């Protein structure tokens, strides 16, 4: 089919949606929306509308990024901009229908912002509100705006024009465009995408493969999931362009099985693209062939490592292989293979959809463009964000994230998941780019940003990540298999108050050894969370070891509970709640906790009525002290 005809049809449908006579409700129905109850909202809208007298559309869109405000419902109404509402409940739906459809009024409660010309009603522009203002949505621009199951919505928003542009050029030209854009791998390592492609293109081999790594598994990361759920065609377009540039006619998307909605949306999008000849043989009459298959993971984190991923597609245990040879030379079934991350490939589509210089005008000298982040943890506004490279962590946490939850003190930001590290609060003015983060001892990673506050124990956090790496280690090479086990054992000793000062040197030595000796990226980076916390939070380790105190009052063996004499009224509630009978005292008398018996479960603290607040938790260990 002719692309011009496709665009014409798609634009007509899109324009009818925006400017036509029929109003529309758009409901955010990605994983975050679903979990907040978007399914019930959609049901309610549909029943209310079908029983009413007005014609109205109900569409499902992806995640617009403000997951903490879900369910999000946007309303298109002729003559008005798109009005976006947050935290919508079923009862609000009835009010909305009544106001919009029956009376032609606007409900002003719960408005997040509006999109589009906004002269007649004085409402905040969605992209100017504090959460959105520092963001530049180059990659996520369609998420939450278009219906991901409707190919026409994508096409009407520049979709597949990047592919059209690419196919009119030589494959070398496409690589040059990538070079000019400055795009570097968004999976975390930051290798220039064009250079990787050039290696593969230069291989004299008839069969080449392109793989999209959608095996997102870093704790704290869900950027790829949202992108796949909200805008799957962007990935397909990016992949066809990449396939053309490197000379591959077969592509695979390796997506983790824990993302059922993303898989469903991908499969649908692939069939739609095939039907319109945007994928398959002789794409848009160019003579270029490119086919796509979806491969599911089965719950092995290490399969996000490129050589393990290749083994998994080949039907093997997903274990890494030594590099070199690099996959660009010898990858899937020993053929030249390029593995790119979801965000990298979507960026490719955007770069080709826009004029040269468009992408590279954002970002820093060495890190061009934007980066998506999953902003999670102890931050007010959790969600999916996209900022120009070089934005500081402070801007991300305070301007976009709204600061730390419950007025607590920021302690650290964890970036790069189990391969990254913890940046202390004192360093949050560093810009987020590949080089600055590496200098701070962490990595960009795929984009998880976990905000931690004073209630988080950094030794415990380090232990959690090492435990993760230890469990997910495939066991192939000894440094990773045994080294992470030893690091975990040492950290378990420290949090139990059995650590020694020598342990700290041992952790450092072991960590460095594991990084040097491991076969793949998992082991080579696994000690990072421990090494960065040792570097920035060494005092906290020393408190655990020398003073048997967990300052954040997290580690069970290094904290204790006490009943405050001046507040206890002898209500006897804690006495009944204690599962090990460690609390003594008669009703109306002062109660006391036997520290020898106490298992520090915290039940007494939970159950003590707030009006008394007679139980306090302190860092330290009474029994060890005595």
């Amino acid at each position, binding site marked *: 089919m002719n692309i011009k005809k496709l665009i014409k049809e798609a634009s007509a449908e899109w324009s009818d949606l925006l400017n036509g006579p029929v109003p529309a409700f758009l409901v955010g129905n990605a*994983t*975050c929306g*679903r*979990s*907040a109850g978007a399914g019930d909202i959609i049901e309610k809208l549909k029943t209310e509308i079908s029983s009413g007298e007005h014609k109205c559309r109900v569409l499902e869109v992806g995640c617009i990024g403000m*997951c*903490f405000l879900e369910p999000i419902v946007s309303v298109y109404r002729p003559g008005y901009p798109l009005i976006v509402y947050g935290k919508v409940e079923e009862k609000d739906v009835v009010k909305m229908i009544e106001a919009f459809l029956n009376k032609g009024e606007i409900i002003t409660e719960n408005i997040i912002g509006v999109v589009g010309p906004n002269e007649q009603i004085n409402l905040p522009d969605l992209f100017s509100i504090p959460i959105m203002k520092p963001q530049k949505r180059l990659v996520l621009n369609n998420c939450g705006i278009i219906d991901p199951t409707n190919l026409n919505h994508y096409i009407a928003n520049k979709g597949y024009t990047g592919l059209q542009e690419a196919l009119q050029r030589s494959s070398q030209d496409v690589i040059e465009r990538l070079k000019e854009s400055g795009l570097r791998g968004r999976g975390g390592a930051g290798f220039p995408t064009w250079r990787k492609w050039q290696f593969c293109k230069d291989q004299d081999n008839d069969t080449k493969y392109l793989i999209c790594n959608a095996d*997102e*598994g*870093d*704790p*704290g*990361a*869900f950027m790829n*999931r949202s992108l796949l759920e909200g805008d799957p065609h962007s990935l397909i377009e990016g992949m066809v362009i990449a396939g053309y540039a490197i000379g591959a006619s077969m592509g695979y998307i390796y997506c*983790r*099985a*824990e*993302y*059922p*909605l993303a898989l469903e949306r991908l499969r649908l999008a692939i069939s739609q693209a095939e039907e319109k000849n945007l994928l398959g043989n002789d794409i848009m009459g160019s003579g270029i062939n490119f086919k796509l298959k979806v*491969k*599911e*993971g*089965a*719950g*092995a*984190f290490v399969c996000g490592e490129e050589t393990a991923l290749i083994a*998994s*597609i*080949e*039907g*093997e*245990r*997903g*274990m890494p292989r030594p590099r070199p040879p690099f996959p660009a030379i010898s990858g899937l079934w020993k053929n030249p293979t390029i593995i790119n991350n979801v965000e990298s490939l979507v960026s490719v589509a955007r770069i080709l959809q826009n004029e040269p210089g468009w992408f590279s005008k954002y970002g820093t000298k060495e890190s061009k463009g934007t980066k998506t982040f*999953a902003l*999670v*943890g*102890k931050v007010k506004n*959790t*969600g*999916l964000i996209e900022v120009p490279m070089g934005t500081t962590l402070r801007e991300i946490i305070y301007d976009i994230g709204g600061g730390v939850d419950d007025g607590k003190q920021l302690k650290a930001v*964890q970036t790069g998941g189990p391969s990254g590290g913890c940046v202390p609060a004192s360093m949050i003015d560093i810009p987020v780019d590949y080089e600055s983060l590496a200098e701070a001892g962490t990595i960009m990673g795929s984009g*998880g940003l*976990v905000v*931690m506050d004073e209630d*988080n124990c950094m030794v415990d*956090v380090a232990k*959690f*990540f090492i435990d*993760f790496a230890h*469990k*997910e280690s*495939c066991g192939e090479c000894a440094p990773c298999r045994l080294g992470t086990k030893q690091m975990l054992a040492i950290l378990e000793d420290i949090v139990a108050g059995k650590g020694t000062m020598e342990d700290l040197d041992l952790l450092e030595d072991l960590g460095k050894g594991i990084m040097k000796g491991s076969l793949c990226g998992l082991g080579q980076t696994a000690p990072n969370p421990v090494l960065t916390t040792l570097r920035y939070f060494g005092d906290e380790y020393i408190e655990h070891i020398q003073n048997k105190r967990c300052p954040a009052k997290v580690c069970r063996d290094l904290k204790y509970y006490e009943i405050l004499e001046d507040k206890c009224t002898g209500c006897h509630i804690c006495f009944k709640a204690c599962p090990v009978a460690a609390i003594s005292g008669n009703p109306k008398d002062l109660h006391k906790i036997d520290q020898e018996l106490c298992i520090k479960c915290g039940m007494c603290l939970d159950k003590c009525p707030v009006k008394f607040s007679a139980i306090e938790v302190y860092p330290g260990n009474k029994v060890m002290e005595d």
Partner: protein
Amino acid sequence: MERSEILKQFGNDDENLINILHALQNNNSQNYLEKDDLKAAANHLNITYSHIYGVVTYYTMFSLKPRGKNIIRICNSPVCDMEKSSDIITKIKKILSIGVGEISKDKRFSLELSECLGQCDIAPGMMINEDVYGNLHNADLASIFEKYK
């Protein structure tokens, strides 16, 4: 569905192995792979049983033991832990009277811990089969489980 019907949907190349194993396991009412499943897959792809056994035991989502009709996967990653997923795990164990890796008496549920489910924006989170539940509170759990017969 018959095993042979499922296998027919896939080609004979090794690359189909993991997708085949998922399909066979999903077709099993007790959510696990029987010896005969492995044998049938080996036959279909013309590879050895031991190779498939190696693959099945490598990936955490495959099971060689019967499981409950519905699988609860609760996220055990640092972000969910920060949001008190351990309390949720304790409560689930209590409601269903099962431990991690066990099947409930009525065989309705299996409880498994999972590494990050990518639901950190709605932590603490869990999945029951393919359904996602986030921002969990202890009080919500019983009514969620009610939906699964």
